[in-house]
């Protein structure tokens, strides 16, 4: 599964994109896995109220299932316009 990071999440994790092998079935479970892997992730996901997720480029919820997902993206609240 490909994971993308944007804005300060990208800066904290240290990469814009990475390939991850996971058996997590939800977004929340995936985040738990990442947090345990390295403190960069713990830092990036320390305030979940400021984290948004998209599954295959669709905004999603943290408890959304990951089955069949090819791309998961994490980013702060959007500030377009």
């Amino acid at each position, binding site marked *: 599964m490909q994971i*993308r990071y*944007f*804005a*300060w999440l*990208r800066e904290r994790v240290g990469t814009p994109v990475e390939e991850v092998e996971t058996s997590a079935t939800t977004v929340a479970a995936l985040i738990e896995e990442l947090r345990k892997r390295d403190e960069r992730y713990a830092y990036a996901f320390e305030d979940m109220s400021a984290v948004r997720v*998209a599954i295959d*480029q*669709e*905004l999603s919820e943290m408890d959304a299932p990951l089955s069949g997902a090819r791309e998961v*993206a994490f*980013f*702060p*609240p*959007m*500030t*377009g*316009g």
Partner: protein
Amino acid sequence: MSVSVQQGDFDVAAEMAALRAGRTDIGAIVSFTGLVRDSAHGEEISDMELEHYPGMTEKALQDIEAKANARWPLQATRIVHRFGRLSPGEQIVLVLTASPHRHAAFEAAEFLMDFLKSRAPFWKKEGTGDGGRWVDARDSDEDALSRWE
């Protein structure tokens, strides 16, 4: 209906002319142009870096545009959003709406901007003396969005 996500600048006059070209049934055109400001929170801004999510951005913009067209009697709409490094005074975003009636054109343009502010995958980093700061999403932008629900 048409959206562009691009690094280069846009030409409001050319965009407006394209919207009107060859038709005489439009009564009202509203444009919104967003510009990079030279200061924020009393601090000077040297430049602005606009990051986005290629692929998702285009889909989000098309989705927003379709929602506006489903909700108001619009004859044409256009969204252009830039990314990359921009200087104060430069154009960031353009929204155009055309309708037989002014209220529909105004409302649709506000609706599109409210959605772009907090539902289009862009993130702004302001260049300040201490190396730059990611712009925080504002509660007022979420509030603005909630009035369309």
